């Protein structure tokens, strides 16, 4: 049971870590489809 809970916690940490890491390296999937000039979402 402990291994299961630990795995779920690790899953959350990996997910948050991945989000932050991709953000840090400046990757944005929306940039791949259109430039910021034509998007309304991020000014």
């Amino acid at each position, binding site marked *: *049971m*402990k*291994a*299961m809970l*630990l*795995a*779920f916690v*690790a*899953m959350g940490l*990996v*997910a*948050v*870590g*991945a*989000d932050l890491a991709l953000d840090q390296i400046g*990757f944005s*999937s929306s*940039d*791949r*489809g*259109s*430039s910021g*000039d*034509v998007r309304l979402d991020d000014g």
Partner: protein
Amino acid sequence: MVRRLLALFLVLSLGTGAFAQEGFTPSDPDRSATGGAQTLEDIMARQEQMRVDDSFRSDLTGDPDAAAPTTDQLGTRGGASDPDLWRGLRYDTADVTTQARGPAATTLIQDGGMRWVAFREGPVAVYGGYLLLATIALLALFYVIRGRIRIDGAKTGRTITRFQAVERFGHWLLAGSFILLGITGLISLFGRKAIAAFQSADNPENYERAREVYATLALGSKWIHNNVSWAFMIALVLIFVMWVWHNLPDRTDIKWLAQGGGIFTKHHPPAKKFNAGQKLIFWSVIVLGGSISASGLSLLFPFELPMFAVTFDKINALGIPGWFGFSPLDTALAPHEEMQYAQLWHAIVSFVLMAIIIAHIYIGSVGMEGAYDAMGSGEVEEQWAREHHSIWAEEVLAEKNAPPSAQATPAE
């Protein structure tokens, strides 16, 4: 697109050429009556949603070399007319320069989008949904017929360690992430259809509320799907490294399969740490999970990891489409087309793996007494181990019961 995807699926799944070719017009239709332009047959075929060979149009994008010089009478200023240019844009062959810098920026028109949406919301969603429902129904039927697979012999009250903590950690990391990815994937695929159920002229407020709820849910699902995928991929590598050795096929698997795993009998065929059924699950997870991860990475990094044109090229080189009566697969794919194929492949393979995993969850929980303990506490009833994994149990018990002198060499 449908044709290519079906061909690819057939090829990769080593299926038979069961799909008829009724969706295609002859590869070399006679267009002499129209001077090479589209014929009545083309129009009729298109109306029947068949794919039409429109090279007579796609190749007609102007030829500067054929243009009459401007010094001549009726000379032109180039070899491409406006219709030629529009055809070039339509078929993504025009020489386009854009200020935007993106991998797909110079593709101004891509006409595969509607075919992709239709296939995604049609066959993929419909057959995928039926596959999951049918799997659940079959398992329910199996439960009614067979009941819970009990431990046949008398329980010993003793347990043996089936999986170490690190193995259970890897399993649950994979399981937890896959379940979350499955649920969020299904929300993305079926969510819009689900809120349509609230659409009613009598009560538009209900629909608006459902739409708002779904918008939040979809956004959250997307975040979870994109980011939890990394945990899934890490866990996939982890379980592969830990268990691949135990999942290599051997002679006991043939006996196990020949006896149907003893599912309908009281006789349990001998098995090592993993029986043939578990090995099939393992390799399904590795192969299908690997394929889902590859297409998922392609979707996570749009246009960066195109893989279908390359795959089609390899398949064509082997002449595989011809085995099934298909013409070579198109290898000139627009960036968006690559993404559309990746999404469809991702969804189709995920549905297959979800069906397999539902069966795995069943047998590991309500379907078999004592099975959950293997991944719960890691300790299983000795009698359970003797019945379901007799060879492995004997090895473990022999090691456990061996005299101390045989287990370790004392220091001298």
